[in-house]
């Protein structure tokens, strides 16, 4: 089968002088699923930016609703029976004869009206419901999106930087440098991933920056391996040999010649890392090892949701799951489309 396709004269797709990225963009535009997913991801990114600037969901910590307020669509919860004591119906009895404070009520009311209370009435329903403390689930979900996506992307960038630089050095130079990096890689790989994350979490503590650091430091090994393999493969290729023959320096060969040729591989791998790190952050936050107490993420929401579920309050679980599912699915589909657009031969990498 492979020989047969060599005989075919491909239609004149290569008439335009497109670089790789331009040609990929053209292919990407033709993929409807990819475009839709990209729009969804873009919408989420806008949401993240807007939330980070404080324009929405700033007051997610405010307890604006009653405890466990149901979503607006379901309507307010019916008033619960407050125990065995029956509340008698009918107007209150008149006690002014025996009530010692009765003559002072008018003054008290007059004095009280001078003070403004900011005791806003607690809403009975919230758009996506409220949590145990009456905080707006939608605000939490949006803020959580901001934090979880931010952590995932930043950690992926960190891991990619470390993995790429080390992989380039190890793959290109080999020898003692390569051996040392291989040793480093083996050390990090020998410890099971989650254990490494836990060890880092134990010493570094909680917090957004910490989580980024932990995930980045624990997750560079996969990318290192791939970048190293690619550099080793390309170093032997004739265009690099030719560059050496004309006198190009090592740095030039590594970063001017080889790196652009594998940047698409790195990009695809990084998108996989983003998804993986978002999921890791959710689990870490669930366990209380992720973001700090003053922050909210999808993970902390899920932690609360577990106890709420038994009581029959499902909306926080649904909101966190929903936001996460939509974003991750859209991101994955977009990443697939980008990969296909960059190089159809990479399809096997999924």
């Amino acid at each position, binding site marked *: 089968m492979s020989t047969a396709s060599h005989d075919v004269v491909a239609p004149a797709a290569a008439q335009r002088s497109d670089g790789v990225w331009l040609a990929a963009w053209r292919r990407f535009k033709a993929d409807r699923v990819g475009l839709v997913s990209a729009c969804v991801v873009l919408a989420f990114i806008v949401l993240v930016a807007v939330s980070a600037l404080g324009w929405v969901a700033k007051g997610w910590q405010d307890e604006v609703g009653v405890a466990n307020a149901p979503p607006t669509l379901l309507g307010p919860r019916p008033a619960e029976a407050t125990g065995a004591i029956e509340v008698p119906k009918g107007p209150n009895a008149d006690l002014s004869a025996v009530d010692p404070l009765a003559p002072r009520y008018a003054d008290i009311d007059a004095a009280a009206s001078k003070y403004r209370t900011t005791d806003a009435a607690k809403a009975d329903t919230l758009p996506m419901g409220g949590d145990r403390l009456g905080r707006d689930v939608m605000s939490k979900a949006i803020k959580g999106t901001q934090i979880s996506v931010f952590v995932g992307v930043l950690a992926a960038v960190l891991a990619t930087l470390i993995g790429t630089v080390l992989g380039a050095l190890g793959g290109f130079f080999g020898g003692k440098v390569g051996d040392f990096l291989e*040793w480093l890689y083996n*050390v*990090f790989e*020998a*410890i099971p991933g989650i*254990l490494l994350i836990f060890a880092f979490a134990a010493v570094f503590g909680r917090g957004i920056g910490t989580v980024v650091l932990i995930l980045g430091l624990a997750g560079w090994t996969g990318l290192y391996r791939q970048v190293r393999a690619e550099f080793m493969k390309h170093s032997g290729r004739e265009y690099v040999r030719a560059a050496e023959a004309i006198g190009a320096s090592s740095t030039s060969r590594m970063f001017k010649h080889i790196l652009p040729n594998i940047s698409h591989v790195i990009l695809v791998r990084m998108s996989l890392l983003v998804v993986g790190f978002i999921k890791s952050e959710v689990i870490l936050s669930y*366990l*209380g090892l992720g973001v700090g107490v003053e922050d909210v993420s999808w993970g902390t929401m899920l932690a609360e949701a577990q106890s709420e579920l*038994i009581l029959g309050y499902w909306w926080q679980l649904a909101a966190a799951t929903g936001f996460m599912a939509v974003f991750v699915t859209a991101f994955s589909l977009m990443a697939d489309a980008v990969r296909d657009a960059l190089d159809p031969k990479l399809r096997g990498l999924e």
Partner: protein
Amino acid sequence: MAAYILRRLWQMIPTILGVVLLVFFLFKYFGGDPAEILGGLNATPEQIAAIRQQLGLDKPVWVQLGLYLQSVATFDWGKSWATNEAVSHLFSSRLPATLTVMLPILVLEVIVALPVAMWVSYRRGSLADRTLMVVTTIALSISFLVYIIVGQYVFGFQLGWFPVQGWSDSTWTNLTTYVPLPVLLAVFVALAPYTRLYRTFFLDELGQDYVRTARAKGMTEGRVMFSHVLRNAMIPILTNVGLALPGVFVGSFLIEVFFSIPGLGREILLAVNRSDYPVIQAIAVYLAALTMVINLIVDVLFKLVDPRVVLK
């Protein structure tokens, strides 16, 4: 062969050394002061100083490192700061529980994902194939946590088919009563990524030249798939299983936490929450060594699977 094994064992030494160094310095320079942790919140400075001396923390760094290396070499892992239990005992008592859960999961994952992936790659491009890809993409976007929370709620709490949590001393009871729900959930969740992965392996093999040769010899599509392709696809599949094997020992800590199974994963989590450094350090080194030994065994056994493998 013997030369190969010896060389591999020899090469493990610098790596183990690296792990030990990493663990030692990580906890030394980034972790909290052990004396303060052990002393507790109400300890006086004198008490803390006494603890420090007892632990040998006032000695120079390289002496401490030497002592640590010595303890590693003699397999003296020390005691847990929280429970004062010997770490080695901790390890040996928690491991069976982890294995009782993880091994069935590993086996079932492969057994279930394989036929699905094979069927889907056989009908590549069909509606079933594309539906599967979409379904798996969505399934993968939902956190493992959600599956466990919902699964535990529905099957344990609402329907009452399985106990929500629990463990016993008898392996048989565990296997029949407490293990099914966690295993079910874990395998269900693992289906999506494994099916996709195996599908890729099968598709890769289907594109190879030897498949064309088999067809040219007049073999039916069924024989091509089940005999030629499957046998070749087993190589990356088993490689994948081999890589997953060391992970079995840490266990899915989430499962252990949710279902209150007294396994190694849950133990590590407890240790992290309690800042129980000796436990974490010891388990890290233990498991790193175990990982390398398992990798060696897998590499050696691989010759049975792939005749092209040359052990140098």
